[in-house]
């Protein structure tokens, strides 16, 4: 290339790669150096650039014309429509609440699990006897519990509930602090290679799982390491990381499969609560190679799956709503938050049929 009589621009392929920016920087520098001493070569490069630009402009023009035809008469997405949908949903929710409201004492019932059970009798795999239990009996039991709380205080109320119920009822009345404890334990077990005993959660309880979050830095690093140049956007996938402890340890291993699933897309409500609200032993955010795990709680309220995340503080600023729910495979829910990806395993008990 240093020989001014040996013109690299005679190489048509090289000329195209130079103009289309498909050569390495080092090689480009050498070629440009030659151009400084070769006027004819410079002109040839400029002509090639002009040709590429002309074809580019022509392409733009044609695509724009095509787009104009395609969108002619296409109405824009009306955001006001979403407001109506939201308003309708709110009205429906309020109406449902009013209908289901029963004349109980004015005590505020804080036991979420009771509400979940009443709103969603198909949560979990209930034994026939439990699933077919009389609602009036449950309400009566709840009223008794509430009366007990009023008259004897929470400790005695819990004791009364424990003695009144058996089996799952007993588990349902466990102090709330004990449930996050399970999540933390499961998160630790997942990273240590033990199976997460999700099926052991019990039919009437909230289901606690271990969610995995992957951040932007990890994404870039991993992509570079894979030699891919840039992110490959695909939607047909599932993630094993949140399920298989061995992959979770690697932090980012995901597997592409040919089964697009969006079954839960419109029925998932994502919330988050500060992990600081959990007891210290439950604040189980574990970082591993750019990925981190933390507890997540799953509840099924009617047709809506409520996912409550207990992440560490770094994603607490992000507003969560249904729009961040990306997609769902059969057994995994994927949530995208600005530059971060959250993988939530879905136990069989709460998967939508």
């Amino acid at each position, binding site marked *: 290339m240093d020989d001014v009589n040996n013109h690299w621009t005679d190489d*048509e392929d090289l000329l195209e790669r130079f103009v*289309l920016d498909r050569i390495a920087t080092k090689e480009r520098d050498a070629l440009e150096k030659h151009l400084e001493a070769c006027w*004819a070569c410079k*002109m*040839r490069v*400029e*002509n090639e650039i*002009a*040709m*590429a*630009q*002309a*074809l*580019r*402009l*022509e*392409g*733009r023009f044609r*695509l*724009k014309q*095509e*787009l*104009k035809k*395609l*969108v002619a008469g*296409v*109405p*824009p*997405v*009306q*955001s006001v429509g979403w407001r109506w949908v939201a308003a309708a949903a709110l009205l429906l929710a309020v109406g449902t609440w009013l209908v289901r409201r029963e004349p109980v004492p004015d005590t505020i019932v804080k036991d979420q699990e009771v509400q979940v059970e009443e709103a969603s009798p198909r949560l979990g795999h209930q034994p026939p006897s439990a699933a077919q239990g009389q609602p009036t009996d449950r309400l009566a039991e709840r009223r008794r519990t509430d009366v007990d709380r009023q008259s004897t205080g929470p400790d005695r109320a819990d004791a009364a509930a424990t003695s009144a119920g058996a089996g799952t009822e007993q588990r349902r009345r466990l102090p709330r602090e004990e449930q996050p404890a399970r999540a933390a334990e499961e998160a630790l077990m997942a990273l240590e290679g033990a199976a997460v005993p999700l099926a052991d959660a019990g039919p009437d309880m909230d289901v606690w799982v271990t969610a995995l979050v*992957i951040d932007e830095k*990890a994404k870039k690093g*991993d992509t570079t*390491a*894979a030699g*891919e*140049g*840039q*992110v*490959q*956007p*695909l*939607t047909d*996938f599932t993630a094993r990381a949140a399920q298989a402890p061995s992959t979770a340890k*690697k932090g*980012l*291993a*995901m*597997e*592409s499969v040919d089964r697009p699933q969006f079954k839960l897309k419109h029925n998932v409500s994502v919330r988050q609560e500060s992990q600081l609200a959990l007891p210290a032993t439950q604040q189980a955010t574990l970082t591993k190679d750019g990925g981190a795990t933390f507890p997540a709680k799953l509840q099924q309220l009617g047709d809506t799956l409520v996912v409550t995340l207990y992440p560490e503080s770094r994603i607490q600023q992000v507003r969560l709503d249904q729009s*961040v729910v*990306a*997609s769902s495979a059969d057994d995994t829910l*994927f*949530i*995208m938050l*600005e*530059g971060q*990806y959250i993988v939530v395993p879905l136990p069989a008990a709460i998967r939508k049929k």
Partner: protein
Amino acid sequence: MTARIFQFNRDAETLRLIQKGDREGLVRLYRENRRPVVSYVTKNSGTLDDAEDVLQEAVVVLWERIRENTFELQSQLSTFVYATSRNIWLRRLAQARKEQSGDIDPDSIAADNADPEEEVDGRTSAIRAALNKLGEPCRTLLMLFYWERLSMEEIAANMGFANADTAKAKKYQCKEQLRRLAAKEISWTT
């Protein structure tokens, strides 16, 4: 299985459509961004036609970035389209007002979203004119190579050539033909 990170949302689906060459991806982008772009342009001295033209331009810019493999999804697609539309419109306003003491500084507008239409020189215009005189399959072949950024293997498969070498030889002939046509328009140096 090579570790990969995927974008898990509707944007990813839109990108996938565009990568596949499915125009539905472009229509979706247009529809979903029309309202904010129209709002912005019409509130800044533009008309509805201006807004739609700017939005179409922005969508095409995104399409081009994706095809050139230079687009990396770092925010929502709507953010990119809106920002690009805004830059294109500001640049057009700046051009229109360049004789006035700038309400808008053209240099302050992001250069990476610049509208390339404004940088056309006489030689490029001549080649475009020649391109319209170029017959088939040359015009399609060159468009697939320079605009669609397809490889010679893909072009061969797409256009029914025996193999990539055949397509490459044909491309060379087509370029020579285009140069000859353009030379009639201007002084063409080879």
